[in-house]
């Protein structure tokens, strides 16, 4: 028996919004510690890793580990039926082939439940080693979304280079080139508006802007986004989900094509 009750259905909605761009279906792994999700997109260029801790839920019960393969399109449809302030409960029997979503309006006057069929998905878990990243940049999530959007107009790839002075995003394309420099915020009045950089060595990496844009769909989850980079390692873009978990995107950098040299 699995049961997880979340007071704000909006969180679940936002999470789904944040991943459904990249993934068509995904496996929700529920265990005693919480709900995990890890999946790569079809092209195997990016990876989404989401974690919702059990203590973040209003009520959480998971008797036996259970993996639920869900079609995210269908799940989105169901969550659209919930109002933002509704209380949502996910329920599944052990070894069941369906999952049930129950939405209760705040005044308990309206209760709706939706049952969704589960899918059998090939598990393709990747082991992600703990890494000490050379650069860790924190910036306002809205700013990051804006930068990605703006630069994607110029070219398909974005070069992110991080130095002591700041972080620079640039893109070159048909119409010309674009550069955006963010300096570290000197005095931090509001943490969510600050740009902070922790750096061991300068890093310059190139990424496909399309994926970055998909990642920024998570902007509504958090005010701050954290970018972690090291040479020749995938970029990590992390958003916190309230105080119940986080969502991390991994993106493989573009590398030089040896054939072309």
């Amino acid at each position: 028996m699995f049961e997880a009750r979340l007071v704000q259905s909006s969180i679940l909605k936002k999470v789904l919004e944040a991943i459904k761009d990249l993934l068509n279906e995904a496996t929700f792994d529920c265990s005693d510690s919480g709900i995990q999700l890890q999946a790569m997109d079809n092209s195997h260029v990016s990876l989404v890793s989401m974690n919702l801790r059990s203590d973040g839920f209003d009520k959480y019960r998971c008797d036996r580990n259970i993996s639920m393969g869900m079609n995210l399109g269908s799940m989105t449809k169901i969550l659209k039926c919930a109002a933002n302030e509704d209380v949502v409960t996910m329920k599944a029997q052990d070894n069941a082939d369906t999952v049930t979503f129950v939405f209760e309006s705040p005044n308990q006057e309206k209760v709706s439940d939706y049952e969704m069929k589960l899918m059998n998905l090939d598990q393709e878990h990747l082991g992600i080693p703990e890494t000490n990243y050379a650069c860790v940049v924190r910036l306002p999530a809205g700013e990051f979304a804006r930068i990605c959007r703006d630069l994607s107009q110029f070219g398909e790839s974005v070069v992110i280079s991080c130095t002591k002075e700041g972080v620079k995003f640039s893109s070159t394309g048909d119409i010309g080139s674009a550069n955006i420099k963010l300096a570290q915020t000197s005095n931090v009045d509001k943490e969510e508006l600050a740009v902070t950089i922790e750096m061991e060595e300068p890093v310059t990496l190139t990424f496909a802007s399309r994926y970055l844009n998909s990642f920024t769909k998570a902007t509504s989850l958090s005010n701050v986004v954290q970018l972690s980079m090291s040479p020749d390692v995938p970029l990590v873009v992390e958003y916190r989900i309230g105080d119940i978990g986080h969502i991390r995107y991994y993106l493989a950098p573009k590398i030089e094509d040896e054939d072309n040299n």
Partner: protein
Amino acid sequence: MGGMGAMVEMDVGSLRLYLQNIEEYVMDEDKIVTYKWLSKNLDIHVNTAKQLLYTFATEQKDDVHLTYLVGGVLCDGTGCKIQIVRQEDLEKAKAEFKALTSEHVYSVQKARTLPDLGALYAVDVHMRDENEDDKSVSCARLSAITCSHSVLRQQEEIERLRQKARAATSAVDGKQWPTGPSVNKRAKALNNKEVATGDASKVESGSKKELKNSVIPAMFAAQTCKNMKDEKPKAAETLTAKPKASNGSSVFFSKQTEKPVKPKVSVSKDSASGLSSKDSEGNKEEVKRASKSHQEKQEDSQSKIKLSKNVKCNITKQTEKKGGKGKSINMDTNELLPAKKRKRILVISDSEDSSGDDILDRDDAEASDSSPLPEVSPQLHESNTDDVIPPTPEAELKKGRKRVRKMKDKTFMEEDGYMLTCKEYVIESCTDSEEEQTNENEKKQPEENCEPVKSDTPKSPKAVSKEPPAKKKSLRQKTKQATLTNFFKKIS
């Protein structure tokens, strides 16, 4: 009636002078003289003008014709009425009233009968047109009522009202002002420029921030990029923004004037640079104001009002156009304005879709069409028969590769067997000879055809390079998208 004893009387000399004036107007110049016109022309109180007309009419009884104004409470209890009547209808009209509150001469003219009392209105209109400068201001002086609180607004207040009104209306319209996109483009262009140069002094968002800017400029310098978000509103706001304080405004102006000098990035239609500067002048009226104020070197406030009148005219047009009536008002403004100003208006409209029914406007559009800068030419029919050669966006995106757009003849067989030859623009690469072949065939496609990411993502994962992606190199070289499986191992 009236004047007995030691009351203030008009002295006989001036009375005669006035009467002679009236005689001249009525008899010699054959004018319709209304009391209001007279009051205005002789600069006398309206009531005196009415009396003068009466006096004149009694003296010239047989030669002139009068209209009277009567007003009062109607007999039939349907309220009050104020009426202009001809001399001969006076008694009949007076019989309608239960009580008269007003009766005086309205106008005097030589013609026996006025064909149409509407002509009396024309007299007033002419009077207003003749005194274009001080319209009603001096008129009010001659009336019997003064209004102490009817005062002219300060320039700033007018400006504020305009903005407020616009904000309110735009809020309701629920759509962007038609000129919005071009403004945005400009804002973006500015953004890029500013980001590139890191010129913090230019970054300001709206007047409020402007203030802040001067206080803690250092902070802004650090946040140059952050202000991008605010750039759009700023650009929109500065369209109508007027000086708040005199010293602040001069700074503002000088900044604004710099902008049009720079080559325009935003408005693609402008081909000639001369045109573009005009355009920006039209679009940003404060720029124009600024340039004017440069010329006139800040004359005294009186002349400023006049100046602002001009400006205001333009604002009206501009904003009305923004209200979604672009086409129509555009046309009308042309009628209204002296020929000299036409260009300016035209150029305003240039930033929108050129309107079909304005000839001048169309000329302008044609001019830009025939300009050397080629636009995407229609190619719909070709795509039927041609093999669509997959675009090679990567090549296109390479920096430093010189590419030339050339006009090429393209011949192909149409479905029904005719040979067709089309002239079309192709993008050619000059430096990279191995790419030439593909590029030559590559048409100037609409942007969406060159969606690049898909084509290169599924490439084989074998190309794993451990070399650090040195940026300068990689810009000239092909990069390849690595996959995550190169970095992380599968757990099975």
